[in-house]
């Protein structure tokens, strides 16, 4: 599992953790059954507070990406390809919502946004 945290980023640290780990799960880099490090240990190694890690893990669980087995730890959940697609779309959509309001604030139409996206994609 690879995680790089930036203290200068605008994003809260738990969100950085969540985004990076969820991306690795969705891309299949972390396979189902992979055991995440215990919360307190992860906090110590990453030099962040315990509650920050807890929040990230909870968010992962809420999205169905990991399962917590009491007394054993947190494991990457099993998914069918369809489920992966669905979770991926939901995750991307969240980001799009905030992006969309940014584009709207400039008065861009959907066609204009698509045109611009095509240029950089």
């Amino acid at each position, binding site marked *: 599992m690879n995680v790089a945290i930036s*203290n200068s980023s605008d994003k809260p640290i738990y969100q950085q953790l969540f985004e990076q780990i969820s991306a690795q799960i969705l891309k299949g880099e972390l396979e189902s059954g992979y055991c995440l490090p215990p919360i307190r240990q992860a906090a*110590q190694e990453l*030099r*962040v*507070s315990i509650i*920050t890690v807890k929040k990230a893990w909870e968010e992962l669980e809420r999205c169905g990406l990991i399962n917590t087995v009491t007394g054993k730890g947190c494991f990457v959940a099993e998914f069918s390809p369809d489920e992966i697609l669905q979770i991926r779309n939901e995750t991307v959509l969240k980001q799009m919502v905030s992006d969309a309001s940014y584009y709207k604030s400039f008065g861009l139409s959907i066609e204009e946004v698509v045109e611009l996206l095509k240029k950089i994609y």
Partner: protein
Amino acid sequence: MLALDIRNLNKAYPNFQLQNVSFQLEKGYIMGFIGANGAGKTTTIKSILNMLHIDSGEVLILGKNIAEHEIELKQEIGYAFGDIDFYTRSKIKTLTDVIKKFYKNWNDETYYNYLRRFKLDENKKIAELSTGMKVKYNLALALSHGAKLLVLDEPTSGLDPVARDNLLEIFQELVVDGEVSILFSTHITSDLEKCADYITFIVNGQIVKSSEKEEFIESYRLLNGKESQLEQVKDQLISYKKNSFGFTGLIHSKDFDPSSEINAAIPSLEEIMIYFSKKEDSYV
């Protein structure tokens, strides 16, 4: 289980008073205690340790009242204040030999580990130690008798950035297995952004807020707007500064209407402290 449970603490001095100070620290977590100089941090910490007579209120440590179980509880508490001002002509070694007799669970191995880690020479006299080394010596003492609760008053002030970082690393190591809890006061807020789970903020003898760190920061917004927009929000702002480009001010998130065109950002702990102190000033 609560490591520390402070309920309605009151203590009046001629020119200052602690008013209804209450907060709780869950076992196994780190709490940062912030506030300006003279806000009541040390008075609160002294009350926790039963070092002064409080007018009313209760302090429970690991479920027991400190006033009733002081001797027993002090075995479980490690505490450190910035300075050591007794027996300054003695060597570290001599002073430690005296202090360790008070603790049933004193562990020499742990103690020497910390001495090595802090690069302290036990043959040095207290008077010869720099401020930072005194802090470290104090911490070594506090950490060597298996304390379950650490109460530290400004442990990082006087330390250089490298030593501060080392210390924070030690704090995080200590809480890993969930047995030890730490309360430390500081005004170096960057220390807390890294490792604290909870923040308690005291202004002028009263607790403004005590909560999880992220919730704490999220409950405020730093606004940045044009002077013409100031009137819209002026009444809700905790305090604000005007400059030739407009204004910046702090507001409770719940009072802020996100659909307004004023630019809002999440403040740092330092910014929160600064705007609260400005509010105090404006009353004077």
